[in-house]
């Protein structure tokens, strides 16, 4: 390392491309995490308090699976999932190759946050809806999801931010995006300026997403 920052090394075109790749990974993985994690969280919530013994057993099993997926470090998860990733998207590298491990890593995390947010809903309000003849499904989507919306948005924000750090990590195993730039130039070639620019871009992304999340939470909070 020469200790001097030389921004002339920075290839801005490449940064543009990498940023787009990161955003693509982030966009798709966030979308699928939402589509899988939200129903999973609802199921966890419903089964945990079900009157049926069998569903409560299923809850325990699902809960263990979720815990296992959450406890595996993401970088190991990517490698461990390579065969499955190849099955799903026919490749294990690049933007496409990263989306399955990102989703499998983040969806259980988000599901737990969903479960916690749903538990915060006042039991009395749920009971009131039941007393008015609401079905389980109506209770879920007209009461529980609606009442816990701020909590769900906050949880999703946290998840998307975790996904940003996951996409950066995926640079180590050929994932593409800003993480790859930081690893290939900043780490292997000691181009500190590239490292720094990647860092700034990632921090900016996190800030923007957190800000949007906070705004939305505030907008939907009525208490």
């Amino acid at each position, binding site marked *: 390392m020469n200790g001097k920052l030389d921004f002339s090394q920075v290839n801005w075109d490449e940064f543009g491309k990498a940023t787009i790749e990161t955003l693509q990974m982030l966009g798709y993985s966030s979308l699928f995490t939402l589509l899988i994690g939200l129903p999973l969280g609802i199921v966890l919530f419903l089964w945990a308090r079900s009157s049926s013994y069998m569903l409560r057993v299923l809850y325990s099993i699902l809960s263990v699976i979720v815990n296992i997926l959450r406890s595996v470090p993401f970088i190991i998860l990517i490698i461990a999932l390579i065969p499955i990733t190849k099955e799903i998207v026919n490749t294990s590298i690049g933007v496409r190759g990263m989306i399955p491990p990102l989703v499998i890593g983040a969806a259980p995390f988000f599901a737990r946050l969903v479960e916690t947010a749903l538990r915060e809903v006042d039991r009395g309000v749920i009971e009131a809806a039941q*007393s008015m*003849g609401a*079905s389980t499904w109506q209770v879920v989507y007209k009461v529980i999801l609606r009442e816990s919306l701020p909590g769900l948005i906050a949880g999703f924000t946290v998840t998307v931010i975790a996904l940003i750090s996951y996409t950066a990590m995926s640079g180590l195993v050929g994932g593409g995006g800003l993480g790859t730039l930081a690893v290939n130039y900043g780490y292997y070639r000691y181009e500190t300026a590239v490292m720094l620019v990647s860092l700034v871009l990632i921090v900016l992304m996190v800030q923007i997403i957190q800000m949007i999340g906070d705004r939305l939470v505030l907008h939907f909070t*009525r208490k």
Partner: protein
Amino acid sequence: MITIKNLVKTYTTRGKSATALNGINLEIGQGEIFGIIGHSGAGKSTLIRCINMLEQPTSGSVRIGETEITRLGKRQLQRERRKLGMIFQHFNLLSSATVYDNVAFPLRLERMPRAEIDRRVKEMLELVGLTEHAKKYPAQLSGGQKQRVGIARALAPNPRVLLCDEATSALDPQTTDSILRLLLDINRKLGLTIVLITHEMHVIQSICDKVAVINGGIIVEQGPVIEVFLKPREAITRDFIKRESEGGEMFEEAIRAVHVPSSRTVRVTFIGELTYESTLSQTVKETGVDFAILQGTISRIKDTPYGQLVVRFEGDTDSINNTLRRLTEQRLEVEELQ
């Protein structure tokens, strides 16, 4: 209207079982305001929640009109519940929905057409006096206003029965009275049957037609409010009534402590129009005894005026006996205290 037979509810937690209801029998008539009073833990909350099956009874039956609600399947129960409105101690409104949307909620569950919902919601908001607050969220309302929203929401689907689970217990006295007046008003206007549970005799006295006293999971006493209130048989009932007429017990002890020779102390009860007549003074004028009023209440139970006086008659034994007999003949209730 509502018939409850041999209702039993037992909770089992970690192998231990606790009986909340131990064989409840009740008959609630169409258009009645029926009060159930009990201390916390007496089982009153479990009882009212068994009426709409928020709580599944262990055995026994609840019949509403022609429907035995304890035997319904899930779907049928959901449909039947729409005929039973319920309001709660903590209101249980959707905090994320406006007043309007809260009242519209049960109607949307039924998939009522939009225009009809709009008409009905406005009608309900007018009934409870919250028309200007339609666009507010529950957090912006006072406790009494929230309960009014609760009432509007419960009544919107046009139920046959309104269940009130400690509906005024979280409210201050003035607000409680305004909510009670509203309930009474609705009962008269719509002929709605109201079942309410409370731990306050004041609530029962203000609006109920009939009352049941629950203790330890059983109904210990029930009947028209005026009878139960003026002639309570059970200690627990007397306890609830005494709490209302402050210091009643202490006063009776004080009366017993003072001994006046050649006198008898009695409690005289007037019910209905007799309350406002001069029966007592006319009688003593005729029999020639003196009297002192030691304690007295003149009030009403729902619409019936009543008076209850503790009176010490002084005079010779015959005159006093004569006085008491005459009072009894004029349909006053006379009960000897000493």
